[in-house]
């Protein structure tokens, strides 16, 4: 230990931090600055103590991206001011801790909507940008990073600089998607999407096979949003069947009552199911079904139900209800029990997707670890350094974690990695909790990794910004 340091950090700073799925529980010294200037002090403290810092927003990463075992975690949620809102041009400047929820509530009434949102409204913009999140419209709108006009960053050395697609372009394209390993976003300016209604026009229908789901998504590329639900528990040839939801924004003349649908209270998710059952009671009620047999039954009922009732029907649905499906049931992830869950998402080129995804579902079943939720999405490539996207499809699989299945789950993930990599697949750091250095360097390529590390050495020569994910994938 260095002789210069005289005092350790107070043990009162120690906190338990978890991933979104509650399957990882790690200790860290937690700091929650409420002014950007405080970042300097925390960096200085970390430097003096010989500890690294991980940046954390709302903690909605499925893996270990916002964990830093035994070291410092900087929770940026209190930096949550909306700084400038230009309702004419649809440009908003926010601090990194502003959440997607805060953002849409602030701009909706003026006829604007975040161009890209994840499946839940609770993440922070800083976190979303660090992961360069995508929505159900990725092939149309790209990742969130493509809607950033500019941002201001603080580098670990304390230097503050502005980055845009033209200014400091290299850092711009690396910090977005850089998982908080290069610097802190201190202010972010986004360009929003102009909308003429708070509703989307949604069409839903079932498809009997995974190949049909993939081609249905392909055929509906003129839609604004398309997402496929995949039944990963069905038996035999039915494995991989599912349901498509396609949606489009309404044009200026299509919603006569736009003023009302653009009100925040028209968007609020109901807090009761069927008008009676408080939704916070749902996770414990769902828990008995979150196992292989229960999920098989639930999925079967869902598939058959969707095929029978309202199949191919078109209806209008509020933007919030369509986009933030995960928030429909508060703390849904608790229904997975004490061991929590992980998600495994792989991105495959167009041609290979249907076959390889089906192969993956079979591998899961062979391992006795069927995914309880599969979500299929369409993607296109982007210009960000650590991008997960490609011209193709992604399948996100949720797995329940128990004490007994952890080792098998890791082995299964390695098997799925092989399938994905052989087909030219990619992965997504916001979701990942199983990749190793070898797989990461295979999908990103040695050159990209070198470029990232070179840039990191330049902006963070002391390697102050780290996370469990960093040490696992790049360390």
């Amino acid at each position, binding site marked *: 230990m260095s002789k210069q340091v005289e005092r350790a950090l107070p043990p009162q700073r120690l906190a338990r931090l978890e991933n979104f799925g509650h399957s990882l529980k790690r200790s860290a010294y937690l700091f929650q600055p409420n002014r950007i200037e405080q970042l300097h002090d925390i960096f200085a403290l970390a430097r003096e*103590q010989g500890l690294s810092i991980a940046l954390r927003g709302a903690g909605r990463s499925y893996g270990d991206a916002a964990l830093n075992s035994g070291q410092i975690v900087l929770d940026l949620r209190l930096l949550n001011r909306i700084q400038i809102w230009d309702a004419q041009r649809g440009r908003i400047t926010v601090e990194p801790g502003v959440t997607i929820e805060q953002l849409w509530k602030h701009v909706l009434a003026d006829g604007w909507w975040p161009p890209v949102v994840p499946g839940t409204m609770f993440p922070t913009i800083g976190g979303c940008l660090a992961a360069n999140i995508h929505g159900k419209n990725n092939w149309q709108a790209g990742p969130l990073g493509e809607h950033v006009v500019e941002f201001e960053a603080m580098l670990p050395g304390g230097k503050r600089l502005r980055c845009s697609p033209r200014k400091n372009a290299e850092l711009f394209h690396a910090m977005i998607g850089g998982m908080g390993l290069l610097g802190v976003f201190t202010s972010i300016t986004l360009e929003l999407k102009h909308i003429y209604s708070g509703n989307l026009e949604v069409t839903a229908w079932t498809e009997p096979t995974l190949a049909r789901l993939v081609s249905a998504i392909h055929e509906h590329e003129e839609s604004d949003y398309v997402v496929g639900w995949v039944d990963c528990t069905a038996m035999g040839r039915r494995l991989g069947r599912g349901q498509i939801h396609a949606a489009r924004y309404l044009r200026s003349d299509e919603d006569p009552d736009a003023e009302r649908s653009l009100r925040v209270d028209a968007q609020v998710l109901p807090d009761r199911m069927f008008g009676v059952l408080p939704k916070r009671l749902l996770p414990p009620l769902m828990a008995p079904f979150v196992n292989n047999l229960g999920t098989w039954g639930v999925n079967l009922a869902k598939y058959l139900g969707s095929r029978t009732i309202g199949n191919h029907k078109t209806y209008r649905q509020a933007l919030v209800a369509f986009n933030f499906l995960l928030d429909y049931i508060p703390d849904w992830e608790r229904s997975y029990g004490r061991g929590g869950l992980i998600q495994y998402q792989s991105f495959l080129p167009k041609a290979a997707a249907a076959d390889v995804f089906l192969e993956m579902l079979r591998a899961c079943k062979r391992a006795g670890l069927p995914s309880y939720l599969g979500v299929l999405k369409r993607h296109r490539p982007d210009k960000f350094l650590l991008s997960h996207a490609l011209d193709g499809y992604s399948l996100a699989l949720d797995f329940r974690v128990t004490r007994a299945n952890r080792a098998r789950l890791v082995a299964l993930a390695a098997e799925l990695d092989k399938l994905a990599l052989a087909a030219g697949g990619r992965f997504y750091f916001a979701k990942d909790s199983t990749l190793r250095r070898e797989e990461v360097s295979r999908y990103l390529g040695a050159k990209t990794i070198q470029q990232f590390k070179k840039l990191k050495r330049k902006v963070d020569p002391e390697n102050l910004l780290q996370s469990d994910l960093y040490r696992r994938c790049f360390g």
Partner: protein
Amino acid sequence: MAKKRKSAPILPPESPLTRRRRALVVGASSGIGAAIAQRLAAEGHVVAALARSKGELDKLCREVNAQLGDTRALAYEHDVTDVESIPLTFQRLLKELGGMDVLVYCAGVMPAVASDEFNLEKDELMIDTNLRGGLAWLGLGAALFQRMGAGHLVGISSVAGDRGRVLNPGYNASKAGLDAYLEALRNRLTRHGVHVLTVKPGFVDTEMLKASRGPKFGVISPEQVAAGVWKAMRARKQLVYIPWIWRWIMLAVRNVPSFIFRRLSI
């Protein structure tokens, strides 16, 4: 001067989902501590072994790692009587291990004391090593585990803590203090999901016993103590006498009335 941030120690890469549990054993160079470190490593933990004598620690860790074919034990030189250094050492270990799930305090000394000797220096050494160091380490462990809502705190006390006896008053006092502290931690932390275990070994075949003047019977090996501790940890016992017979012996000893006890020479 800014330091270069060293990455974590050379532990084999692990998947986050199957990460080994982390254990810290204070006083691990010989006797019971060494056996517990060895046992925890064999049971799948990554163990940080702390003691004054780096040479013996290194030897222990080399043996453990060679035997298990894996980097499972790490040696750290540390003197528990240097209480001021404990918070920083704790912080450094938390970083290098990447967390902590088990903390075992077994540092203990028992210098020979003549029956007519009252030696503050020796008494202070026992209080500092057996009790004060324990307060510092276990207190930090308690702060961490309370927040984590999990963890095992293990204190190696002694049957000597059950009653003040003629042989070594300072030793009795240090172990009785440790007992009370562990009990208090247990009462504070059980509600937070933390397991606090007090271990009271009888006669164990260690250097300490060889130096002791008292009676010796039913001597067991340090490995037997380690096995008993592991079993008690798994069963989340509060207090364990090893071997079990000492529970009954000490029940009797505790209940000998003072007017008799003070005439005995045990």
